[in-house]
């Protein structure tokens, strides 16, 4: 006689044991240290921090190790950890013009106060496999010069001073928090930017690319891209003054887009904005383009059904923890629903056959 499948519990335990074993792999190969991941796979760590929306390189490295290098799985681990942390308050807004620059480029001006700094970029490397890297070579330190302490004001602020760049207006009195209040539409820009900042890099890249190819086109230049360190501080009411509590790496992109003007406003440039944890310029540029595309309604631009202009579409689908969870849930058992469908199909076929026979 048939006995219903039992032993789900043991199956799960065994699967987890196998996972642990497979993660470790060949024991003759040294175990991977978190410092190695943090230092040598830094861009993967940055992506996990950005999409996990938690700035902690050591935790991100741990998540990457635990996830066997699966970045979305690592982001998931970080998010599930982050959600259990108490929220004490919000930091003061960071002033990115005070950034200690690692990299700063502009596609709109050849030079500007503060200069252009290429920094540690893949740009202009020839994408040839470097077989020497396989041999763990000694890498000499990069040449250094002592930087003159200089202000690096935002390049777009020069346009702003001329009145050619649309101002952004003051923010609301309260910082909205996507993780504490349900997302409702229409969403204000601050909330949209928050969603994009933790959104999936691949999804935003594709959307940004689609705007360049004409689906919600608004021609964009990279007005400025800057990567660097910034100190974060908070105002503590108990102390009555500000304290600095962290230094973080950020990538910021401001795009310059055309705007034809409207009834009330003369023609001027408008801005798309991207700000991401870590060194992640592909994400920051994508975010800026998508942010600008989502402003189409506010700017009275043509809305021709392009996905990147559709706030509900973008915000409902940009989170890779939501999308991968729902996508993968279809591998869970659906015996009951499937059985119901099976019965329905059989019945419909029976009825149809009976009707045919009657005719």
């Amino acid at each position, binding site marked *: *006689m*048939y*006995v*219903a*499948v*039992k*032993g*789900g*519990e043991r*199956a*799960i335990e065994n699967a987890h044991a196998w996972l642990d074993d497979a993660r470790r792999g060949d024991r003759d190969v040294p175990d991977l240290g978190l410092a190695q991941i943090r230092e040598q796979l830094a861009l993967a760590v940055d992506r996990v921090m950005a999409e996990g929306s938690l700035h902690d390189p050591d935790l991100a490295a741990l998540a990457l190790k635990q996830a066997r290098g699966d970045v979305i799985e690592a982001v*998931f681990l970080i*998010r*599930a950890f*982050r*959600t*259990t942390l*108490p929220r004490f308050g919000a930091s003061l807004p960071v002033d990115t013009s005070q950034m200690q620059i690692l990299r700063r480029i502009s596609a709109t001006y050849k030079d500007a106060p503060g200069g252009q700094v290429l920094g540690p970029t893949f740009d202009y490397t020839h994408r040839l496999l470097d077989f020497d890297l396989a041999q763990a070579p000694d890498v000499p330190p990069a040449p250094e010069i002592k930087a003159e302490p200089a202000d690096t004001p935002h390049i777009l602020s020069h346009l702003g001073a001329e009145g050619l760049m649309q101002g952004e207006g003051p923010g609301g009195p309260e910082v909205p928090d996507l*993780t*504490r*209040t*349900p*997302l*409702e*539409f*229409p969403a204000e820009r601050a909330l949209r930017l928050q969603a994009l900042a933790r959104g999936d890099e691949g999804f935003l890249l594709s959307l940004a690319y689609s705007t360049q190819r004409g689906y919600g086109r608004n021609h964009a230049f990279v007005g400025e891209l800057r990567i660097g360190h910034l100190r974060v501080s908070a105002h503590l009411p108990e102390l009555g003054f500000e304290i600095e509590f962290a230094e973080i790496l950020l990538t910021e992109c401001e795009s310059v887009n055309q705007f034809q003007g409207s009834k009330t406003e003369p023609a001027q440039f408008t801005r798309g904005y991207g700000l991401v944890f870590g060194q992640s310029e592909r994400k920051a540029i994508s975010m800026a383009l998508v942010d600008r595309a989502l402003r189409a309604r506010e700017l009275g631009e043509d809305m021709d059904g392009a996905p990147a202009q559709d706030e*509900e579409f973008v915000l*409902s689908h940009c989170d890779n*923890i*939501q999308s*991968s*969870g*729902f*996508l*993968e*849930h279809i591998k*869970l*058992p*659906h*015996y*009951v*629903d499937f*059985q*119901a*469908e*099976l*019965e*329905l199909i059989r*019945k*419909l076929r029976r*009825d149809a056959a009976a*009707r045919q026979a009657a005719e």
Partner: protein
Amino acid sequence: MTDYNFAYLDEATKRMLRRAILKAVAIPGYQVPFSSREMPMPYGWGTGGVQVTAACLVPEDTLKVIDQGADDTTNAVSIRNFFARVARVTTTEATAEASVIQTRHRIPERPLTDGQILVFQVPIPEPLRFLEPRETETRTMHALEDYGLMQVRLYEDIARHGEIARAYAYPVRVEGRYIMDPSPIPKFDNPKLDRSPALHLFGAGREGRIYALPPHTRVESLDFEDYPFTASKAAGQRCAICGAEDSYLDEVITDDAGGRMFVCSDTDYCATRVAAQAEDAA
């Protein structure tokens, strides 16, 4: 596991969830938005149900978790273990003994009683979603009771198939007001919702919605007067293990020559009947 609060979520989050649940109970069938948390299991795997259960549990509770009607399917085991770890509540497989039951895709065969809470895991809470993808539109449709389109779909089913071709997640109308998705339970289970003495709570984690049926709520499956709703299941079959004819049956393929058998999807119901039969025989 002492690093986490009772039932995993912090108290502030539970308070937020309980507010949403109370609002949902006050407006039966209405989808209350809530700020869903990332849970340690993936979205789509019961995070909504888990959050609702976490908000309801007290240390004295006895918890049962089923998936597809069974206590021993992998995801049911996983969620039950989760709560056993983070809430240290007693767990059970017996429907009658449970004070809180979390379920995916089924309602237990044994009628629920006063005081029991049934928590559903919901993938897509919006019954109008497949007619209209936009949340802003569907919320307006609910607000204005603009449900003609839903009925048009059912009309189309009859025109094409001779009957309403919906086997599960069959839409219901709650207290004559909101149209509600009962989650992907087979329509066989729909009548169990009507005027049930138990509290039914529905949690959709990814979509951030909670809705509820307070005890004794009127729940009608949508239909036409001349094409009334029927709660169908495998025709003319009985459970191969306990012989039940009144329960929802899973089909199991037994060989590669077209052999198949039917067994109760509700494992507790089946086991209880088998035990009673053994007792009678003794």
